[in-house]
């Protein structure tokens, strides 16, 4: 165990909640709260999975995802997307960009946990 999850999210309370849920399940969680430099952070840290918020300061989650998929090194990296904008077209856009899982806020803790387990296990 001890797989790495990188959580890219800017809301402190949500970071706190997800970190608590995953840590308790044995994941090591790192966080990044700005859109800028997020891609570099992923590249240097090489996590097993990232949880990516859409509405981030400076660079949106979609742009980050696109950049990750364009880079061969991170093209296959499992990405779980979180968004507070629950419209269908947001989900469609994310799927087109190659997201692995798409979860709308507010979420249930067990869903997050199950998705993370499934994605990290497959990856």
């Amino acid at each position, binding site marked *: 165990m001890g797989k790495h999850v990188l959580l890219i999210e800017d809301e402190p309370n949500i970071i706190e*909640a997800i970190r608590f849920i995953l840590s308790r399940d044995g994941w090591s969680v790192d966080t990044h709260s700005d859109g800028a430099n997020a891609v570099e952070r992923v590249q240097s840290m090489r996590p097993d999975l990232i949880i990516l918020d859409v509405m981030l*300061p400076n660079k949106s989650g979609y742009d980050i995802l696109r950049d990750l998929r364009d880079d061969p090194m991170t093209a296959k990296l499992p990405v779980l997307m979180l968004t507070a904008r629950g419209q269908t077209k947001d989900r469609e856009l994310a799927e087109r960009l190659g997201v692995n899982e798409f979860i709308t806020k507010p979420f249930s803790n067990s869903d997050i946990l199950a998705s993370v387990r499934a994605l990290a296990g497959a990856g």
Partner: protein
Amino acid sequence: MVTFNLLILVSLAYVIFLFAVAFFAERRAQQGRTGWMRAPLIYTLSLSVYCTAWTFYGAVGYATRSGLEFVTIYLGPTLVMIGWWWILRKLVRIGRTHRITSIADLISSRFGKSTALGVCVTAFAVIGTTPYIALQLQSVTLSFDAFNGTARADEQALQSTAFWIAAGLAIFTVIFGTRNLDANERHHGVVMAIAVEAVVKLAALVAVGVFVVWGLGGGPLATMATIDASPMADLELQTSRWIGITFTAAAAFLCLPRMFQVMVVENADERHLGTASWAFPLYMMLMSLFVIPIAVIGLDLMPAGSNPDLFVLTLPLSQGREDLAMLAFLGGFSAATSMVIVAAIALSTMVSNHIVMPIWLSTQKDGATVSGDVRHVLLRSRRLSIIAILFLGYVYYRLSGGGTALAAIGLISFAGVAQFLPSMLGGIFWRGATRVGALAGLSTGFVIWMYTMMLPSIGVAGVFPDAWMQGGPADLHWLRPQALFGIEGLDPVVHAVFWSLTLNTAAFIIGSMLSFPSPLERLQGAQFVNVFDHSTGPRGWSHTGAAAEDLMMMAQRILGPSEAQQLFQAEAKRQGKGDDLPDPSPEFIDRLERELAGSVGGATAHAMISQIVGGATVSVQDLMAVADEAAQIMEYSNQLEAKSVELENTAGKLRDANEMLTALSVQKDAFLSQISHELRTPMTSIRSFSEILRDGDDLTRPERSKYSDIIHAEAIRLTRLLDNLLDLSVLENGQIDLELQRGTLRQVLDRALASSEAATEGLKITLDVTGTDDVIETDLDRLTQVFINLITNAAKYCTAEDPHLRIRIHEDGQIRHIDFIDNGMGIPQASQSLIFEKFSRLSDQAAAGSAGLGLAICREIMSKLGGEVRYLDGTNGTAFRVSLPTGVNVAAAAAE
């Protein structure tokens, strides 16, 4: 014995016969089957309208008084027909080319379409012709009287006969003279009826003549001997009278309105003049052949004192030849009626075109362009004119009492219309002739004619006192009406004709030379004088110098390539020329012109074809018609343009509306998306932590407490957000009621500072205020809300190490400003207008726990309060200015 009633019956039957002839001819013409009706013979016979009752009955009387002199009346026209046929040809050509409707129209058109000249000529023509119409009525009435020599009808019956004749002629003329308003004003029915009457006239006179010579005179030789033995053979020929009267008759032949009508207006083909130039003199010769025999034998056989003016009628009657007398009566009737009908048509055209229409048009402000309107008025005015003219003739007949010898009235009338001659001939042969000259000549000639001829004739006793005639007015000898300028010894007729025409011509020439023609006059002058260079021959497009290629090119330009191609190919096939271009035959060019007219209008089409076919030139009327058409097309295209601009505008408006709706829809989507985000974010924390609390029995106590606090804080954030949203929605919809209260700015500031105390921990606030104790009346709670928002914003966003907020109040004229200035880093210019929009948070302030509605709410509140809030640039930090008009200041009232 022929009774009065039988006579009336015969006349009536004859009139009905004429009606039938006219009706038949009119119908044929309407069906387009003019055929033989346009034969040169008909034209020639119609010219016989010149031979009126005056020549029919009067010539014999004339001969008994003056011998052969009556021949001058026929000699004049004969000379014109034979020697001056080129004048006639030119008149006819001008008449056709310029669509001249009367002699008044000719003269007025030539001199720049002068209304004054039109009126002048019309008036003179009416004055000159009325006695002549009266003369016809008189002669018909007299002939009735002659028939009833024994069974004498009373005076009353005769007068009513004249009246009914006038009325009947009016009806006939109205019916056949104003049926249509064709451009060329032809009256096929009338012309045909007149031709028939011409035959009746001639037949009657010849029949009487033959009867007189062979039946009464004992053959030609015996008759000649009788003539030689009669006193008429001794009558001296007065050379001056011969020349004078011949000339007058020639002039009248050209100028009489009725002659102009049949000769020029009703002319269907210029070449008919050729036939008429020998046939009409022949006709007149036949008409005059038996005049002398009838006169001589009449004098011989008739009792002394009988009226020689009626010998044609009374001679057969006295011999018991009532059938012949009846024929003679019909001949005279024909002569009289044909003259009256044509004269009435000609005069009514002139009166309505040159007097009624100009007056009517000038009373129409703008409605006169409706052609149907004009047509209606024109027809009605013609009909009324005809009736009026005939009534005038009847009145003149009643007043004059019918005393004067027929010939005298005829000559006076001739001399009167002869006054048109200088202007007419000058107009068509001299380009220098002007309107002023024509007016001067006409009026001079007319005045002298009145003075020397007309007025003396209607009664030496009536108008002029004897002393005048003998000694001149006011003893001015040289002004004696029949011896102007002291020239005595001349025959009165010759005297009048000589002076009136000489002075007329002189005035015309001098007036023309002293005046300068207008451009239109010069143009018309050139067109009239050089009519043969400018117009086509009688047969449309007879000389076709056109190349088929040129016609094709023009047709393509106007009709479009494919349609032109079709037209030309069809014609080529018809001509049997296969794929070649067709020959430009006259028929084809005619057809082409019609096709083109359908596209560009008749006048334009004619002008264009003329350009290519050559020879023909465009008349002023054509040009004007072209201009009219162009104006109509332009008007139409202007309307189209206006419409398309309108459509464009509408489309633009729709586009704008659509863009606005789209923008609104995008805004709404963005707004919903934003709200969704702002609501879901706190809810996420709440849900997540509440699940953690629910499921986690193993949580430590500090953890529990911490997570409960988060849930609580997020719930509050959520509530605040909802409050703000509702607040903003209410403000934006304008549904709030302001609660106006009185208070001081100090109170408002204090309340705001107290409310935001918890949020402003660590922020140093200084007040730099004056006049805070002034009483204001506004919604104090809302103003407080704005202040709280600005103060807490400073606390939240001021990133300075030692945050400091300065609140400054100052007045600037009518406005009081409350500035909130902190020592933060300020807001970049680009974002300054953005921060008042909903959900606009600057990116680096995302974590501040605000949805970005505060400033939007502030803006709405301030605008409701009649003030504003805006970012204040140019301080060393972040600054907002709240402005309120001092109008809300009610300090004075509050102080008392």
